[in-house]
């Protein structure tokens, strides 16, 4: 057992802030690293210590393994938490940490490699007895072999990158004639995204739910699961709204999926926090999808319903401690929902929106948690993911969690950039969502014309028009010096025409 006194967080944004808070809660000194554009980012200000990586892009900063190791050694950090993304699932970085006697907070490099390769992960799942969707067992070597595989599996099929994740290098193929083109584009996308062109073919499951199991394993052979998260609402194959528990998972199914997740963790020799992802079809059969060997973006919903702080547990496991919770002690209470608040223009097809936030105010109050990487006055830099914050609400039941989410979305003030907030408010009021009828096609099914759905309701437009008329009237009134406010009308006259000056007078 090592006492961990100082942790370097090799990440930025909300997850860096989340881990810094975790360090603070555990009495551990937190060390931030930062790229040039992140010098004034909140994670740098919130950490106990902060050191520059220099460079603007991720490739020049957060992805440079040697720089991060160097900072860790210089400042005396015993451990590195990689967050998610960046180096979180990079086996060579985990290995470099080990070589430098630094604890990498995550599983061993071998486990990362094994589970990071989708084909090897499938083999491990098979060995552990998990149910899988039919697939080609190897990466595709030539188009004829691929055609044979696809015919055997049956169309529609899914082309997936072996090194993949986040929907990159993924293509749905409906019929044999589209197969070759799809493999080519998927392989090219996989090459540019992961530097690994291998793709394989899997049975395409229609209207699946995406349900995942949180696992936690220590170095003493104890493995537990912390229930499920339903993450079916996705855009561009990326999650946008998650919840726990799933509206369709009962105790029995939870136990079965949980056992499966624990089985693959044991089979692979897993240590730390991880997530076993499954697709669940319309009759509630579940199929192994992949293992994410890191803390997930959506981990707070599990924390809210189980009362267990996953980051604290990661720290304990990394220090070599035994898990303090047994499977029997894990209890779900109530319901939690997470909306990822992205700086994106939803109507334009979820494209990133950057800029200065003229006004920013986060919601709070009963049942509300915000994991954010920003505070008022901050800019959203163009170099990184457009995730502003994760808004999580808890309710004693799903209905209350939804009501609180609607309220919290309404309280959330972001002026200056477009966000996913209006979209998420729309989902909370959608009948299929309220009824728990979810699938990964939810957005396309419920909002086939997203731009039209995102049009503000007429009464809101009218209110805003009324506001414009009132602001204009007030302004012209003041320009004419007729205002009955305290400031002298003479001053208003003097400023007449100088709009900038006038704004201050109001």
């Amino acid at each position: 057992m090592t006492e961990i006194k100082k942790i370097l967080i090799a990440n930025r944004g909300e997850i860096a802030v989340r881990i810094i808070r975790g360090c603070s809660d555990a009495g551990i000194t937190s060390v931030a690293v930062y790229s040039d554009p992140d010098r004034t980012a909140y994670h740098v200000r919130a950490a106990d210590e902060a050191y520059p990586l220099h460079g603007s892009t991720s490739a020049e900063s957060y992805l440079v393994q040697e720089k991060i190791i160097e900072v860790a050694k210089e400042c005396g950090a015993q451990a590195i938490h990689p967050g998610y993304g960046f180096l979180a699932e990079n086996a060579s970085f985990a290995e470099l940490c080990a070589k430098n006697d630094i604890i990498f907070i995550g599983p061993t490099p071998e486990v990362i490699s094994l589970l990071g390769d989708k084909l090897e992960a499938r083999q491990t799942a098979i060995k552990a007895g998990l149910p899988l969707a039919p697939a080609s067992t190897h990466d595709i070597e030539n188009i004829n072999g691929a055609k044979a595989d696809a015919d055997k599996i049956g169309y529609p099929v899914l082309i997936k990158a072996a090194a993949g994740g986040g929907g990159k290098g993924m293509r749905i193929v409906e019929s044999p004639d589209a197969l070759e083109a799809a493999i080519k584009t998927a392989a090219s996308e996989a090459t540019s995204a992961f530097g690994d062109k291998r793709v394989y073919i899997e049975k395409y499951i229609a209207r699946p739910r995406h349900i995942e199991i949180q696992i936690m394993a220590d170095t003493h052979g104890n493995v537990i699961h912390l229930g499920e998260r339903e993450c079916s609402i996705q855009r561009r194959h990326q999650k946008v709204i998650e919840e726990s528990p799933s509206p369709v998972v009962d105790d029995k199914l939870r136990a079965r999926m949980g056992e499966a997740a624990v089985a693959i963790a044991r089979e692979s020799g897993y240590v730390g926090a991880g997530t076993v992802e499954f697709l669940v079809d319309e009759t509630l059969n579940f199929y192994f999808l992949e293992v994410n060997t890191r803390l997930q973006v959506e981990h707070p919903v599990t924390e809210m319903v189980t009362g267990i702080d996953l980051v604290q547990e990661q720290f304990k496991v990394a220090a070599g401690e035994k898990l303090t919770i047994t499977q029997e002690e894990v209890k779900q209470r109530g319901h939690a929902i997470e909306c990822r608040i992205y700086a994106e223009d939803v109507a334009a097809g979820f494209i990133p929106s950057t800029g200065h936030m003229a006004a920013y105010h986060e919601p709070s109050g009963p049942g509300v948690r915000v994991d954010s990487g920003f505070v008022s006055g901050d800019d959203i830099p163009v170099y990184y993911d457009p995730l502003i914050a994760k808004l999580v609400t808890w309710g004693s039941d799903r209905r209350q969690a939804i009501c609180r989410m609607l309220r919290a979305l309404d309280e959330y003030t972001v002026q200056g950039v477009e966000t996913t907030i209006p979209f998420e408010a729309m989902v909370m009021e959608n009948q299929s969502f309220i009824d728990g009828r979810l699938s990964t096609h939810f957005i396309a099914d419920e909002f086939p014309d997203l731009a039209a759905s995102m049009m503000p309701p007429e009464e809101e437009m009218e209110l805003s028009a009324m506001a414009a008329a009132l602001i204009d009237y007030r302004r012209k009134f003041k320009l004419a010096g007729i205002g009955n406010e305290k400031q002298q009308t003479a001053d208003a006259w003097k400023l007449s025409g100088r709009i900038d000056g006038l704004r201050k007078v109001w």
Partner: protein
Amino acid sequence: MKKVQVNTADKNYKFELWRSNGDLFIKRNGSQHKADIVRLNNNRYSLIIGGRSHEIGVEHLPDGYAISHGARSENFRVEDYELAKIKKAAGISDTQAVKNVAAPMPGLIVDIQCAIGDEVTKGQSLLVMEAMKMENDIKSPLSGKIKAINISPRESVDKGRVLVEFE
């Protein structure tokens, strides 16, 4: 009393505004409300219209206002109603149609899927931009004929750069 017309890209609203005993009133379609508007900080205002409380954000644009309400933002121009009537009679359009496509974010042009002279339909993909590690289709905001394409593949562009112009 003042009559104004508030225009968006494709709609307009007519209001009457006046003061009486120090209170401000606004009327639309025959229904009239007392309105109370007070400035907060950061260009935000508290607005109570007919008892309903709203907080709005205001940005001054060269030709109007961007009004944020909740998490949405819309642009409005405010015109004198009589002037608007005259303009309409003279056949001057209230709304200036957007005749180009600007970069919605800073990024790299990856692919151009249209050519000068093409007749495109609203929603058709014109080009692909890479930003924040994602490829984004830039779609046509209108149906029309392409007059100019101002960028080349692999070119980096700033937000707001006019990429494609229509006739």
